Structures are given as structure tokens and as C-alpha cells.
């Protein structure tokens, strides 16, 4: 009797962690860009969550409102958020590379205020849930429970991004330039890397990653002003847990936070948010440099 019970519990936990895994992937996409920007540019970007939100809104408009093809909508959203990212970096972020952390946070916080109100002005303040593309409808049977195909797609997409990111950083010329300037900006500049252009491309790339997270979430998550603000703190948590500027750590951090969140909902439905921050505080106190920090 007891054996059956624990087996069921185990199944439940396993299933729950699969659900958590799909949530982890949104966090990972957000945290990956945040980590890249911090690791390479040295800027802690509060407004990164707003780029996530803009990606979601762009996809919602193109796919949900105008009825464009799902993939095309995502691609167009990435491009448009990428352009916004380029403008942001060229005009503003560029000027705060070397200033105090407090000013960086407040400047990017200013952009949160701007973007949040801007989407309210354009799209209205109502929460919106767009339809699901038909080829993703339906469920798989996992451990005898229905598991949405879309969640599986999100998990695979997140892992794919992780692999592609790793390949880009390790195997391409651009990746090498990024790693070089992350470890020593001046030296990289001295051997002929054009740092300003490199930084713009990194920021745009990070913005597109955030937009991808927002875009992929549109069919299942609510699109509303403030979703960026809600996600950014968790992404901060992950970035710190992983060791600031460490992508491998960010990936593991996203898995931890996502799965913990889903367990938290199951076991302590009331204090799920509390637990996430307890975990973050404990890791910060015990290992301030993060799980994978240097």
C-alpha cells in the first residue's frame, strides 16, 4: 500500500518537474541575454524584461491580430525587438558602461517605466491570451497524464537555444571575439576587435533572445503590461545563482528556479514566490559568486 503511494507521489513529482521544465525555458531565454549583456558589456539591464514583453506583444499583434504565420510572426518580432535593442544600445546603454551600478540600474529602470506605459498606451491595459497554432494543439501521454505538445516544444526549443548558443560562443569567430572582450576588453581592443560594434551586436542578440522568450510564450502565457517586470527579478535571481556572466550557470539556475516554482505550487501553493527568494538568498549567502562562478 505504502509502495503504491510513494510511486504515485514520485510520478506526480516527475510530471510536475516536466511542467516546471517548460517554465524554466522562458526564464532561461531571458536570463541568457541578461547574462551575456552583464558578462560582456558589464551592464546590469533591468529593462531586459521589457524586451521580453515587447517580443510577446509583437508576436501577439502579428500572429494573433493580423493572422500571420506563427513562425513568420516570431521571426518578425525578433527582428523588430532587435532593432529596438540596437537603438537602445547605441543611444543610451553605450553611455553607461563605465558608470556606477546604481546609475545603470536606475537608467534601465527608467526604460521599464517607459516601455510599460508605452504598451499600455498602444495595446491597452487588458490582459490578453492569443490562440494556439493548430499544429501544436493536443496532448501527449506522459506517465499516464496529458502533457501539452506545446510544452514539449518549448523544452526542446530552450535546449536547442542552449546548444546553439554554446556552438556560437565556442566555434564561431564572433563567439571568440565575444569571449575575448569579456575577459579583457582593452586587450581585445588592442588586437583589433571593434569593441563598440561588437557590443552593439551582443546587445541586439540578447534582446532577440529575450524577445524569443516572450514570443514563444504568447500562445500559452498571458500577454499584459508588466509581464516583463514580473519575470526580470526571477531572471536576476537565476543570473546571480548561476554566477554573474556565466551562461552554463544561468541554464542550471533556470532549471532550478523553474522546477522549484512548479514544486512550490504543488507543495506550498501559498508561499511559492517566498521559496524562490529564500533559495536565492541562501545561495547568495553561502556561495555569493554563484553555483558556477569563478
Amino acid at each position, binding site marked *: 500500500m505504502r509502495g503504491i503511494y510513494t510511486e504515485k507521489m514520485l510520478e506526480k513529482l516527475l510530471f510536475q518537474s516536466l511542467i516546471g521544465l517548460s517554465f524554466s525555458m522562458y526564464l532561461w531565454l531571458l536570463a541568457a541575454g541578461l547574462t551575456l549583456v552583464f558578462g560582456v558589456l558589464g551592464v546590469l539591464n533591468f529593462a531586459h524584461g521589457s524586451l521580453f514583453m515587447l517580443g510577446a506583444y509583437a508576436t501577439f499583434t502579428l500572429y494573433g491580430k493580423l493572422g500571420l504565420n506563427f513562425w513568420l510572426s516570431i521571426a518578425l518580432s525578433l527582428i523588430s525587438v532587435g532593432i529596438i535593442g540596437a537603438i537602445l544600445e547605441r543611444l*543610451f546603454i553605450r553611455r553607461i558602461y563605465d558608470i556606477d*551600478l546604481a546609475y545603470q*540600474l536606475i537608467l534601465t529602470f527608467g526604460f521599464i517605466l517607459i516601455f510599460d*506605459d508605452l504598451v499600455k498606451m498602444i495595446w491597452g491595459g487588458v490582459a490578453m491570451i492569443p490562440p494556439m497554432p493548430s499544429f501544436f494543439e493536443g496532448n501527449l501521454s506522459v506517465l499516464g497524464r496529458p502533457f501539452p505538445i506545446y510544452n514539449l516544444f518549448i523544452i526542446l526549443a530552450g535546449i536547442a537555444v542552449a546548444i546553439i548558443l554554446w556552438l556560437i560562443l565556442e566555434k564561431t569567430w564572433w563567439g571568440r571575439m565575444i569571449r575575448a572582450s569579456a575577459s579583457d576588453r582593452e586587450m581585445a581592443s588592442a588586437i583589433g576587435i571593434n569593441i563598440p560594434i561588437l557590443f552593439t551586436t551582443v546587445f541586439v542578440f540578447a534582446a532577440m533572445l529575450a524577445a524569443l522568450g516572450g514570443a514563444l510564450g504568447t500562445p500559452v502565457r498571458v500577454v499584459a503590461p508588466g509581464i516583463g517586470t514580473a519575470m526580470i*527579478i526571477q531572471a536576476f535571481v537565476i543570473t546571480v545563482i548561476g554566477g554573474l556572466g556565466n551562461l552554463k550557470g544561468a541554464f542550471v539556475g533556470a532549471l532550478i528556479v523553474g522546477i522549484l516554482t512548479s514544486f512550490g505550487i504543488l507543495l506550498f501553493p501559498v*508561499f511559492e514566490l517566498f521559496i524562490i527568494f529564500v533559495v536565492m*538568498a541562501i545561495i*547568495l549567502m553561502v556561495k555569493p559568486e554563484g553555483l558556477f562562478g569563478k
Partner: protein
Amino acid sequence: MMKLKIFLLAALILFLLFLPAFAGKYLLYMTIHILILSVFALGFNLLLGYTGLLSFGQAGFFAMGAYASAKILLVVPSLLLGTIAGMVAGGISALVLGYLCVRHTRIYFSMLTLSFGMMIYSLAWKWREVTGGDDGLVGIPRAPFDIPGILSINMNPMGNYYYFVLVISLIAIFILYRIVNSPFGLTLKGIRDSENRVAFAGISIRNYRLLSFTIAGLYAGLAGSFLPPLENTVTPPLAHWTHSAEPVMVTLLGGIHTFSGPIVGSVLFYLIKDIIVRYTQYWLIWFGSIVVFLVLVFRGGIVIFFTERIWPLLKKQQRR
């Protein structure tokens, strides 16, 4: 310069004292909010400007003060008791959490305070039995200022409550002024500028940081305790990290290396808000733009800008 400063200060205090004589209810209400934010931000600046620690969780202590004062006022109708409870709640929680935070500096300190602040937020949001959940606590009375056997002042008129907040705020600000100009304040500045040197002088850096953190918490709690009698309600967003950004913003706006910076910043904050809201409901777009502009252009803060740029210019012209 010094004479002018004292003159300006006296004029300002006189103005504040006589404000209810000619101001309407709305102006008094706004001034109370400015005072609350000033006290909140001044405490915060003891950490940022004087100790060199950026806390992103001050709203947590503010909310501790607000909820504690609300809880007391719902049971005992005594304004002073509520205020004291708020201060104590802010101070004690800052002492306990600060013990865990001050071991770390820079970004780690900021992230740690952020997560503690968000813990308090999630408690306020979800612990329905105590905090009323997302509805918050409602129907908090603006209890009379009551010292049993001596006096009892009705606080219902806005003017009376304004004087209560004003007097306590001025006392608190004066005490903080003395603190930052005391040997303790100098030690904090020393820690900010060169941690190692202060440590070599045999001073326990952690204890000083902890004390500074606790004082900031006391001030946040005090500021928080002013709010429930004013609004008759407290809600969880008070503890949210976006509220923690407020003292950071106004302090940077006014200037972190001047004592009056946070006060000037608070005045500007409400002034800007009040003006923009008249024209558009999307005031945050404009406020955000102003914040961005200020960070890019006036990084030293408004106060420094005036004393170092505008003031010498005026003086030069006088001499001609």
C-alpha cells in the same frame, strides 16, 4: 554660502509651519507624501551615499513599518503607538536581515536585499490571515495623538495630521543630520571610500554597516508608519521591488553626496508627477524619460548641479 543656507533652511521651515494656513487639503496631502518619501530616501541614502551600499529591498522595511503601524492602529487607537511600532518593526527586521546582508557588498548586497525585500512582499501578498492578502488591510483609523492623562489631539483634520508628520519628520531629519556629521558618520564615509584603511584602524566594518543598515530600516519603518493613517489602507505593492526603486530614484535625482539630495529629489518627484498627470495618464513614459535624461546628464544630482554650476555663475555676475 553658509549664511544663505541657514536663511534658506529657516525660510523653508517657516513656510512648512504656516502651510496649513493657506494651503488646501490636496497640497497638504501631497506635502505629507513628500515628507514620507524624504524620510524614506534619507534613511536609504545613509546606506548608499554614506556607506556605499546599494539596497534594493528598502520597500520591505517600509512595508514592515506600514503593516505594523496599521495592525496596532486597528487594535489600539493611538497614533504615536502606531508610529513607534512602525519604527521598531522596520528597525528590528533590518537588524535581523542586515546581519545576513552586510557580509556582502556591491551587486551581491543589492541582490540579497532585493531578495529579502521580495520575501517580505510575498508574505504581505500571500499570508492572508495576518496581512489581508492582496486586499491589504483596510479601514485603518487616523487615531488621535494620545498621551493618556496629558493630552489628546484629534487627527481627523488633514492640517493636524500634517503637523504630526511634519514635526516627527523634522526631528528625524535633524537626528540623521547629526548622525552623518558625527564620528560615526565619518567612519561610514571612510568605509565607503576605503574599506581596508578603516579595517586597519581596528574598526569592525560589519558592525558599522549593520548599524547603518538598521538606521536605514528604522527610517524606512518610520516613513511607512505615516502611510496607513493617511490612506486608511495598506497593500502589498508597498513592499514590491518597484517601490524600492523610488528612494533610489529620488536620491540619485537629488544627489547622493549631499545631505539634502534625497529631500530635493522627493520634492521634484512629486512635482514632476503632479505636473505630468495633469496632461496625460501615461505619466510614467515622461517620468521614465526624465530619469534617463537625468542619469545621462546630471549624474551628480540636482543639488550638486546647483551648488557647483549655477551658484558660481550667479556669484560671478554679481561681482561684475
